[in-house]
């Protein structure tokens, strides 16, 4: 696995629009961005409406994921090229999710929607229709997903990487600062977690930093390559961005995304919290 297997440039994406076997997928929480203009031919996935179980707090089960991808016209053999707003947070979450269900060929567009817009590249408002497929998903690969009990057990033993902003880590604020700060969970972080904000892995235009810069970043923040790793944020999408950096770009082993993240951990009764 190397950078070019998992990440494509905006130039590459633009050159490959319309190529058979490649499906561009825009993933946003606020899909008004897609509706206002998207990469030509790209289908949209709504992070909340399409990718979350409508009742329980969880991602879709296998059958629902198969139904979703079939309806979107994505087949098992397609190369799925993901991009989105918020510096690719939700696209990285979708990347992790496609990997959970064993999709073979998935890539992210470096810089996502932001770089695309800043470059002034073309956007289309055309309605995208793809013929339905019969998508078949694998059993969920839980080697890349952490659950709460594993996080508690990892205190003091594994790399626990808190990728939220320093003010969220310290408990000064409870959510990313574009959201109202009224939350029910306690403020703070998992004891022994190291704070390496996701944003340190990205340039201002949303592209990822070079492998050399990324390697140096984690090393200098106390990341121990000999240990297993769990990344978390507030709801699991920024930590998907860091999971992508650690496992897919840097090739580190045994990295899990804790998608329950602080919304779950900070609400658990009796677990230790540091502030």
């Amino acid at each position: 696995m190397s950078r070019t297997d998992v990440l494509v440039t905006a130039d590459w994406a633009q050159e490959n629009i319309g190529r058979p076997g490649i499906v561009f997928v825009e993933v946003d929480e606020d899909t008004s961005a897609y509706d206002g203009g998207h990469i030509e031919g790209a289908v949209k996935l709504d992070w909340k409406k399409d990718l979350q179980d409508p009742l329980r707090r969880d991602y879709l089960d296998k059958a629902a994921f198969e139904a979703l991808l079939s309806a979107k016209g994505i087949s098992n053999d397609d190369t799925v090229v993901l991009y989105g707003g918020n510096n690719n947070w939700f696209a990285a979450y979708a990347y992790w999710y496609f990997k959970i269900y064993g999709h073979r060929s998935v890539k992210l567009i470096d810089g996502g929607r932001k770089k695309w817009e800043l470059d002034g590249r073309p956007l289309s408002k055309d309605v995208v229709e793809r013929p339905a497929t019969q998508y078949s998903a694998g059993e969920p690969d839980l080697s890349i997903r952490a659950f709460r009990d594993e996080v508690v057990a990892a205190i003091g033993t594994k790399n626990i990487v808190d990728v939220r902003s320093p003010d969220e880590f310290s408990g000064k604020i409870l959510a990313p600062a574009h959201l109202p700060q009224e939350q029910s969970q306690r403020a703070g972080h998992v004891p022994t977690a190291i704070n390496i904000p996701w944003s340190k892995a990205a340039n201002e235009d949303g592209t990822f930093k070079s492998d050399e810069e990324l390697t140096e970043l984690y090393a200098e923040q106390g990341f121990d390559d000999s240990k297993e790793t769990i990344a978390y944020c507030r709801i699991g999408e920024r930590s998907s961005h860091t999971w992508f950096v650690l496992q897919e770009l840097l090739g580190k082993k045994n990295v899990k995304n804790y998608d329950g993240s602080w919304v779950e951990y900070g609400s658990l009764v009796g677990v230790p919290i540091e502030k």
Partner: protein
Amino acid sequence: MCGAPKQGGALAGVDLTTQTVIQGQVWHDGAPVAGAYVRLLDSTDEFTAEVVTSPEGEFRFFAAPGPWKVRSLAPVGKGERVLEAETGLNETTIVIA
């Protein structure tokens, strides 16, 4: 949810006795800039949040009292502003020269 809500509009439903709201507009060449990226940086210059401006060039953050920097990135250029926020409404304008 971590996605940014729609920018601008009324502050109805926002409790200004507890929230520290930082909001304003991005301007360039005498007009508001729609679709500009605006990021909020903390006192150590670390990223805290980012939003995209509304059609009227508006942005809004929910922060905490203290020093902050807002920086805008748009195809027309960059601009930034430093401010000291207090609980309640803090308004500022970023001008891209």
